[in-house]
């Protein structure tokens, strides 16, 4: 059924899958993808709430405040991926590994 409740449940499930990926995986590429999953899950909540309550709670922007916030999230996600992958490449040059366990440069 296509209801706000189900959208929120789906969002929570996807967020949990992403959190599992960040905790359990040992590959920075896949961890970054899992972060994307989590960001997208939150975006889904925003869009769903904007659809159901937006025009009642934010009449000034004709209810699109949630959608504007999602656009902001997309910008942050794009910046995060660009910088994250650049860091990954810089680290891979020296270490030849994408395992975060190998990244102990700051250890004394």
């Amino acid at each position, binding site marked *: 059924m*296509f*209801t706000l*409740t*189900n*959208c929120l*449940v789906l*969002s*929570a*499930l*996807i*967020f*949990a*899958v*992403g959190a*599992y990926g960040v*905790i*359990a995986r*040992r*590959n*920075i*590429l*896949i961890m970054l*993808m899992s972060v*994307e*999953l989590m960001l997208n899950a939150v975006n*889904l909540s925003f*869009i*769903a709430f*904007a*659809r*159901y*309550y*937006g*025009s009642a709670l934010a009449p000034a*922007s*004709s*209810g*699109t*405040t949630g*959608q*504007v916030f*999602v*656009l902001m999230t997309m910008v*942050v*996600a*794009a910046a*995060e*991926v*660009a*910088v994250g*992958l*650049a860091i990954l*490449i*810089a680290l891979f040059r020296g270490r*030849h*590994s*994408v*395992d*975060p366990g*190998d990244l102990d440069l700051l250890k004394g």
Partner: protein
Amino acid sequence: MDDLIFTAASIVCFLSALAVVTRKNPIYSAVSLILFFGGLAVIFLLLRAPFVAGMQLIVYGGAILVLFLFVIMLLNLREEELGKEKGGRFKAFAAVAAGALALLVIVPVMAAETARDGFGPLASLPDGFGSVDHLGLALFTQFALPFEVTSVLLLAAIVGSVMLSKKHV
């Protein structure tokens, strides 16, 4: 009809999200991620957010995914470089932790659903809700400052990634 599309899209989304975190080879994860973004864009369309759905496909499905694929190609990881995965017990612990995280949201949402008999009827939406002109108007009037600050963030990201990817930092 909406119910059917929503059910199909959410199943696609959930399964492809699971595939992203479980595949060993990152290239399969990236391909599943495309599927995930596509399914989510369909749900956004159902939720009357056509502009955001388009942006989802262009920014996530286009730009971010291409970035991931480029890096995967560039690194060209061999089997021994993939990173040692944790054992089954650690993964089980992670799954329990993530499941508890999901329950933190699902339980109160379900409680609200039963207590209030759902989240009420659909609010009536203004014409053209979620269209480019509505969002553009909001972005350039009410949210003009955050919108402009975003450009500073993007500039910082551009300079940062160029600096980081240079041969000698």
